[in-house]
């Protein structure tokens, strides 16, 4: 069981900055994120895009913002559970919470801060009417174990990097790889596109373009797919159908935690501390809503700062504390480092 003071769900900019503000109050943090790396949307969707509205940064790349935040919070030694989605929450008798991920990792904390942005990133599922009944019976949206496809007949759909990369990889594993894409053109890293071209020339990958999978076929498990190419619809036998259309954020299991949801976001008390309807659970950043809410990174930073003060009072109800400026108090890390303003000396010069 991982134990911490503030369990943060979501390692985007708001979640990361929470570690800093909590650290100033000597509170330890642990972050859970469904993505394999910290940074949330900034790292996953637009790392190379500039942001212009971070105060005092006339321009900063989203990826650099994340790198800077990671550097800023380093002294506070945050823990990370990455590549796992927060699945369930159980309130304990003492008012603390146990949050369990989809992989069974348990986390125990007196305070939970949901900084989940637009939700956890899930594969985008194509609107094929009967596809749901074949999930895990030959239809997979994520490739977890490539060995599953050894000597199998595989159809992949999609035209981006992951469709190209997996087609290349599985060409040596599967007995047959067919790549179906709506366009003749593929958009991905140049060497991936060229590699697929080579493998197609060698007969190791079959390309069907411009075409779309319109139906999954099989008794109980996948035995083929229907492919529409122009006006023609034909059947292609296969053991697995793998649609790879990228990721999209979904609020997911958090929606079932008993929190008040409005406009696909978690309602909080913005007049006080961004607490939800469940005391001890806060929601900050893009995941929350209140009158006048703006989904901006800078607003998330502000919300995180206020939330940490409230969390401190919740954890130490009998302690008195007033906020201290870092210019005055410096930053003392849990790793023993200390940053502070250089002290002036009073000394006569002879």
């Amino acid at each position, binding site marked *: 069981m991982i134990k911490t003071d503030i369990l943060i769900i979501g390692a985007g900019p708001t979640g990361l900055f929470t570690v800093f503000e909590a650290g100033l109050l000597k509170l330890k943090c642990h972050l859970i994120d469904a993505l394999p790396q910290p940074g949330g*949307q900034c790292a996953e*969707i*637009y790392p190379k*895009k500039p942001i212009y509205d971070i105060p005092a940064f006339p321009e900063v790349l989203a990826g650099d913002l994340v790198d800077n935040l990671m550097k800023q919070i380093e002294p506070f030694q945050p823990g990370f559970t990455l590549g796992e989605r927060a699945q369930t929450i159980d309130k304990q008798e003492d008012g603390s919470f146990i949050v369990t991920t989809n992989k069974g990792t348990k986390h125990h904390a007196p305070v939970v801060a949901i900084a989940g942005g*637009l939700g956890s990133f899930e594969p*985008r599922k*194509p*609107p094929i009417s009967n596809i749901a009944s074949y999930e895990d019976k030959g239809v997979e949206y994520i490739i977890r174990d490539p060995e599953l496809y050894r000597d199998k007949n595989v159809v992949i759909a*999609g*035209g*981006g990097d992951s469709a190209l990369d997996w087609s290349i990889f599985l060409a040596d594993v599967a007995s047959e790889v067919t790549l179906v*894409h*709506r*366009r003749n*053109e593929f*958009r991905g890293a140049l060497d991936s596109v060229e590699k697929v071209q080579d493998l197609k020339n060698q007969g190791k990958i079959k390309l069907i373009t411009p075409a779309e999978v319109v139906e999954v076929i099989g008794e109980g498990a996948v035995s083929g797919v229907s492919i529409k190419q122009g006006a023609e619809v034909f059947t292609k036998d296969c053991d697995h159908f793998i649609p790879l*259309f*990228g990721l*999209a*954020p979904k*609020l997911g299991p958090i929606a079932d935690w008993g929190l008040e949801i409005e*406009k*696909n*976001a978690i309602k909080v008390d913005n007049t006080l501390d961004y607490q939800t309807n469940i005391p001890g659970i806060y929601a900050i950043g893009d995941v929350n*809503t209140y009158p006048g809410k703006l*989904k901006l990174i800078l607003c998330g930073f502000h919300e995180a700062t206020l939330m940490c003060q409230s969390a401190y009072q919740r954890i130490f109800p009998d302690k008195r504390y007033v906020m201290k400026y870092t210019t005055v108090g410096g930053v003392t890390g849990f790793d023993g480092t200390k940053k502070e303003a250089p002290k002036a000396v009073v000394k006569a010069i002879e």
Partner: protein
Amino acid sequence: MPADIKITIIDRDGVSHAIDAPTDMNMNLMEVVRSYELAPEGTIGVCGGMAMCASCQCYVESDHELPEMSDDEDAMLAEAFYVEDNSRLGCQLHISEEMEGLQVRLAPES
């Protein structure tokens, strides 16, 4: 001051809305839809307007000459669902005077 233009947006329930859209606020069609709350928050403009999610896909039903697609928009539509010949991403259509009388239908949520 530049005048607002009239455009018609058919929402995901098939309801038609005749609305005024400003041409001087650097707004795009996705933002206009959100400002009139014609699709629930969280189901449109998910990526914020970077042509990276297709949640603002719409079908252009009037015969307006719209600006050409960028490579980003074209690439996103190649991966999107429910795509038709008249599909565009609302976030890539900046409201301009040439769009007076434009009619678009929002694509299904996906």
